[in-house]
């Protein structure tokens, strides 16, 4: 009998603890006339510049209070999709890139921004290097670029100086890149320094072709143009000028560590790396130039991704959301992140100057970075399309088969074409 009583008491106790903890969950809005703006974002608590920017915004708009809802970076997309599936009333929604945004648009979870853009006299599309027009689906704009990140070739100046080899230049073709990488490969075992480094993403290869617009995920006729790039990269892998894909995949090695530790002389990766280098590299000088390609493209085009910001479809305060978005994606917000070496979506002479001035604060950074930021054309890495996520998945799967040499380059590209065509026809 005693045990039973104890059991029931425990049960009741637990339930009441549970209930009490559940109480006090009422969402209070409009404390004393203020509007609560719900912003969905990742990495908020680990990134300084968000706080700087958000505080500056609330200072300028004292009647708006920002309620940050943060999810961890790796799970952000799925969490936001699930919550929006439950009609969560986010006012502002950050997304990690065009595939994620495409998904949300197709599901009706974000609203179009055309009216806001039209009615906002301070907002000028031309400051965004044509990106606003690329963040569209069915001719409607759905996002404003908060930041953008294009691919560059980063190289370790000190290693080149030591080997007495001239620095890499814009407009190299793949063969020249291969030869340069071979020249810059030295040592064996744990002391080996690789000439170049390819990260395991499929985009690390296809972006090389995308920059000169020889490749478009949505057009399978362009897929054959990937073959020479894959051939060259595999040759580099075979000769040991770059690390083996399979070994990289099995060991979780982050590309940043490889470059920081001077285990590779060159790497082709996005401009977010500038911020990483500014913060982490103090013992060698580094430089940038544009990525190699077989189409003779110099530094005129850039290829890369975008971090768009949008307004949630179930938002309670869409007007305030637009105010917020136009601020952080506008000149003032852009200046805050540019100072840390992050490329804002917004483009202007002032921003370019900030990048050119970076070496004044960070000695190891190169001069004239604006050359690679202020480009003629910004080719978006993954075009907006309801099926782009699926296409990327297929490309990644075939990429892994090609790079592990489980199938030949020809077979791999053929499979890409077949699977994507099938997907697009359904």
């Amino acid at each position, binding site marked *: 009998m005693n045990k039973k009583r104890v059991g029931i008491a425990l049960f009741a106790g*637990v339930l009441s603890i549970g209930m009490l903890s559940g109480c006090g969950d009422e969402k209070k809005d409009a404390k004393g006339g203020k509007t609560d703006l719900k912003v969905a974002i990742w990495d908020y608590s680990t990134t300084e510049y968000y706080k700087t920017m958000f505080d500056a915004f609330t200072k300028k708009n004292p009647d708006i209070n920002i309620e940050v809802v943060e999810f961890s970076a790796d799970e952000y997309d799925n969490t936001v999709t699930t919550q929006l599936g439950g009609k969560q009333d986010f006012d502002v929604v950050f997304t990690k890139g065009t595939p994620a945004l495409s998904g949300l648009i197709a599901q009706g979870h974000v609203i179009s921004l055309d009216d806001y853009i039209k009615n906002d006299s301070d907002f000028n599309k031309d400051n965004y290097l044509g990106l606003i027009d690329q963040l569209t689906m069915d001719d409607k704009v759905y996002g404003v670029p908060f930041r953008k990140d294009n691919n560059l070739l980063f190289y370790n100046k000190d290693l080149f100086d030591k080997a007495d080899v001239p620095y890499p230049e814009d407009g190299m073709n793949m063969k020249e890149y291969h030869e340069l990488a071979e020249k810059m490969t030295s040592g064996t075992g744990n002391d080996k320094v690789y000439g170049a480094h390819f990260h395991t993403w499929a985009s690390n290869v296809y972006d090389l072709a995308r920059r000169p617009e020889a490749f478009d995920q949505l057009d399978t006729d362009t897929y054959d143009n990937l073959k020479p790039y894959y051939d060259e990269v595999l040759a580099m892998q075979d000769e040991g000028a770059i690390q083996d894909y399979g070994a990289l995949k099995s060991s979780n090695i982050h590309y*940043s560590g490889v470059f920081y*530790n001077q285990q590779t002389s060159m790497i082709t990766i996005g401009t977010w790396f500038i911020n990483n280098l500014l913060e982490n590299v103090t013992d060698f000088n580094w430089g940038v130039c544009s990525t190699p390609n077989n189409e003779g493209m110099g530094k005129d085009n850039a290829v890369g991704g975008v971090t768009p910001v949008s307004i949630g479809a179930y938002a309670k305060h869409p007007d305030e959301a637009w105010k917020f978005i136009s601020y952080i994606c506008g000149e003032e917000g852009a200046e805050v992140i540019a100072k840390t070496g992050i490329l804002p979506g917004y483009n202007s002479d002032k921003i370019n100057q900030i990048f050119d001035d970076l070496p004044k604060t960070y000695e190891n950074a190169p001069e004239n970075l604006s050359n690679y930021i202020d480009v003629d054309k910004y080719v978006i890495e993954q075009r907006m399309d309801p099926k782009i996520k699926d296409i990327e998945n297929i490309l990644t799967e075939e990429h892994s088969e090609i790079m592990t040499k489980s199938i030949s380059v020809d077979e791999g590209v053929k499979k890409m074409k077949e699977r994507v065509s099938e997907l697009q026809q359904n």
Partner: protein
Amino acid sequence: MENTKKTAGTRIKKAFIYLALIVMALIMLIPFAWMISASLKLEKDVFSFPIQWIPKDPQWSNYAIIWKKVPLLTGFLNTTKLTVCTTILQLITSSLAAYAFAKLEFKGRDTIFMMYVMTIAIPWQVYMVPQYKLMTWLSLTDSHLGIILMHAFTAMGVFLMRQFFMGIPNELLEAARIDGLSEYGIWARIMLPLSKPAIATLCITSFTFEWNDFMGPLIYLSTQSKKTIQLMLRMFNTQYSSNYAQIMAAATVALIPVLIIFVLLQRYFVEGVATSGIKG
């Protein structure tokens, strides 16, 4: 003559068993050793090759940083609360239901039990979104109560206890019924005491699952002050940089309570408890 042969053979066999066990133990300990080793390194050295088991310059500061970088203590408190509530609730309700399924005859018993068991097969990702819609409708999102209610009534708990209960001889129950004990009495005074190993197992299972669960809290908890340890662990990795050294430090710390529970419950895996009163 025969005796010495037998002892020599047994000794060799024993030595072999000990050797095998020690090798196994070492193999089993490797991930744990790696966790600790990684937690004491600088991020760029975590995945360096070959694996350096003893870091040259141990970064003990990692263990201090983790508490400041994310609100880890809050995470600990939240996880503890969720785990304790869920485990207790599960133990009580599962053992009650399991008794009925194992030892009582009633209408619909087998059908309902099959229904339980079959739902175990469905991956949670499938009903994750409908479940979220339901919880939104019940206003149970962003609350600990919601998570407790979702996790405390699992088919697995009922299934586990029922299987153990099946192993308890019916004669004991018949005797008790003849003595005038109610079904509740039988549950409390016979089934539970005889099932200490089973209860310990369910306790460990439930505790480990809830302690390490992260998909549930991920989707349902938006307020920072309500988040759990596992969510905090993911926050160390940002979009462009990984921080496995700190994650492993936090994971090592998070591991300790689970191990403590296991060690404490070890004593219930003792022989003889279930044999009292059967023969004779």
